[in-house]
C-alpha cells in the first residue's frame, strides 16, 4: 500500500490490537473504518482506571535484636493483635 499523500510505502503496525498503517516517508497515519473509534474507546478505558492503590506503608526500621514482625504483609492487620494482647504492656508504659 502506498501513502495517498506522498506515495511512499506504508508499514503496518499493531497498537493495542488496532491495525495502523504509517507512511515511511511523511509519517502520516492511515486508519481503517472503525479503528479511530477503537482507539478512542481504549483511551477512555485507560482514563477511567482507578489510581493504583497506595503502596503499603513500609515497616519502620528496627534493630537486629528486635522482635520478629509480620513485616512485609503490613502492620494494619497486626494493629490490634500485635500489642493488644500484651495486657501487661499498659503498666509498662507508665513505669520507670
Amino acid at each position, binding site marked *: 500500500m502506498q501513502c495517498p499523500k506522498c506515495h511512499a510505502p506504508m508499514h503496518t503496525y499493531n497498537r493495542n490490537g488496532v491495525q495502523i498503517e504509517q507512511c515511511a516517508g511523511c509519517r502520516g497515519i492511515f486508519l481503517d473504518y472503525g479503528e479511530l473509534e477503537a482507539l478512542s474507546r481504549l483511551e477512555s478505558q485507560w482514563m477511567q482506571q482507578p489510581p493504583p492503590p497506595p503502596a503499603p506503608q513500609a*515497616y519502620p526500621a528496627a534493630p537486629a*535484636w*528486635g522482635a520478629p514482625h509480620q513485616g512485609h504483609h503490613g502492620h494494619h492487620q497486626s494493629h490490634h493483635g*500485635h500489642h493488644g494482647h500484651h495486657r*501487661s504492656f*499498659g503498666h*509498662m*508504659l507508665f513505669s520507670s
Partner: protein
Amino acid sequence: MTTPLLGRLAALAAAPAPPGSPAGAPDTAPEVLADRPDGTVVRRGRTVAKAHAPDGDPHELAARLRIAAHPLLHGILLPPLPVTAPDGLLALTGDGRALTRWPYGSPVPPDDPDAAPWEDAARLLARLHTTDPGQLPGPVPPMRGPAKAARALARLRAAPVPADGPRAAPGPPPAAAAAVERAWSLLPPWARGEAPPPRAATLCHGDLHLGQLVRHPAPDGRWLLIDIDDLGLGDGAWDLARPAAWFATGLLDPGIWTRFLAAYRAAGGPAVRPAGDPWPDLEIPARALTVQTAALAVAKAAGAARRLDEAEQAMVDACARMVPPPRQLAPAGPVVG
C-alpha cells in the same frame, strides 16, 4: 495519712497558694498519688507535694528545680511552686529527704495507649532538646538515665535468690537473669553509667514514659513534662529510647512509633538524624532501656515469686537476641558537641 512523711506532705500540699496565683481550692482531703521507695506524692486539690528519693543529691535536685522554674522551659516542663521554707523550691526533712511542691496536672488515661499524646510528647522532647543549656542557671547536672540503668542491674543482682541459685527455689529464672546480664555486658561504659556519654550537650528528661506527662491546668490544659529527678545534660536519644525499645520488642504498634518519631523530627528534634534510619542514633540507648526494663521486671517478678508476664518476657527475649553492637556505635571517647 499514717506516716509522718505522708502527714508532712499533706501539710505541704495544703500550704497557701503564692500571691498572684488563682485562689486555691477549698481545703480538700489529701490523696496519696504514689508511695514508692523512690518517691511519694500527695495531692490536695490543685497542689501536690512530693518526697523525692532518700538517696538523691539535694544540690543537684535544687539545680533541676531552678531549670524547671526557668522561663526557657515554660510550656515544656511543669514549673515547681515555691515551698514555704528558706530553701526556696525545696525543703528537707529531718533525715535529709527533699520535699517539693507542684501544681496538680491531669495524667494520661492509663487504659488506651493509642490515645496517649504521643505527638505532644515528641514535640515536648524536641523543644527540651533544643533548649540552650548555656542560657540556664547552672551548673546543669548530668542526665541520670545511664545511672538508673545501672541501678536496675544492681536491683536484679540483689533479688531474693541469686541468678545461679537452685532451680527449684523462687527467684529470678537463671536464663532470664543471664540474658539480661549478657546484654548489659555488651553496652559501652557510658550507657552503663561508668563513663561520660559521647554526646552530652543536650538537656534531657532522662526518664520518659507516659506517666511523665500531665495536662496543666487540669483537666484540659496543655501537655507538659513532669518529674525532673533525672533531668540533665546527656544524649537526647535516651529520651526517645524507651518508645524505641517498646517498638523494637514488638509491644508498641509500629504506626505509633512512626508517628512519635515523625513528630519529633518535624519539631526539629536533634537527637536522631532528620531522615532515614534512626537506629544508628537509637541503638545503644534503646538497648540500655530494654536491659533496664528487663532487669527491673526480672527482679520484681522474683520478689513477688511470680512468672514474667508477656511484656516482661518480650523485654528479656530481646536481651537474649542482642549481639555485640556495631563498632561505630560505641565511640572510643567523649566527643564534645
